[in-house]
């Protein structure tokens, strides 16, 4: 299908880090406004998404080092760096999303969600369910 045309490093980045359109939009928005930062509430209203689920995504990305957060609560999130490996790959992804939106979307939805992550999530006691 058309997804075969995406470069390998982009496909790997999507497979490892982007499992939903929501995640994609978070990354693209923070890339666009970098080096500025936003709170999860600001992001939620900019993207028309729910603050709780955005919060979880942001924290997951921060843990991976793709984003950084700062300040007292409420946290401000921003892209770690446009020049870093992640930054460049997100930049490339942004360009590909503009030029070949359908391919990117297909690639995202063709990845099975790793059951592994659900194992780790099971041990969070008392988290809010989405």
């Amino acid at each position, binding site marked *: 299908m058309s997804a075969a045309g995406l470069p390998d490093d982009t496909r790997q980045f999507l497979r490892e880090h982007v499992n939903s359109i929501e995640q994609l939009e978070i990354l693209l928005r923070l890339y666009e406004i970098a080096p500025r930062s936003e709170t999860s509430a600001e992001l939620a209203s900019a993207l028309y998404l729910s603050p709780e689920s955005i919060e979880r995504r942001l924290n997951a990305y921060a843990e991976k080092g793709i984003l950084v957060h700062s300040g007292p609560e409420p946290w401000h999130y921003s892209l770690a760096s446009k020049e870093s490996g992640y930054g460049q790959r997100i930049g490339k992804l942004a360009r590909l999303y503009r030029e070949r939106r359908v391919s990117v979307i297909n690639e995202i939805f063709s990845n099975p969600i*790793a*059951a592994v992550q*659900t194992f780790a*999530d*099971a041990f969070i006691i008392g988290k809010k*369910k989405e």
Partner: protein
Amino acid sequence: MANVVYILCAVTSISCAVLLLRSYRASRVRMLLWSGLCFSFLALNNILLVLDLTVLPEVDLSTVRSIPAVIGLGLLLYGFIWDEKST
């Protein structure tokens, strides 16, 4: 002292099992079922250890008490290998 340790191990195993099976009930991700069952069987293994040491010292339960561990680990590995990815 050994009993205290094995009871603690059983409690920990049961806690892990509960967390995993609870998540399985919510999400139906199969790997959680297998790993939850694994920890249930490991808990049983620890409980049988306590029984072997205290309640029934004259009977040798060495083989019997090890069987739940084999079953549990078998289920865990099955889950890891077969159900690692779920759609």
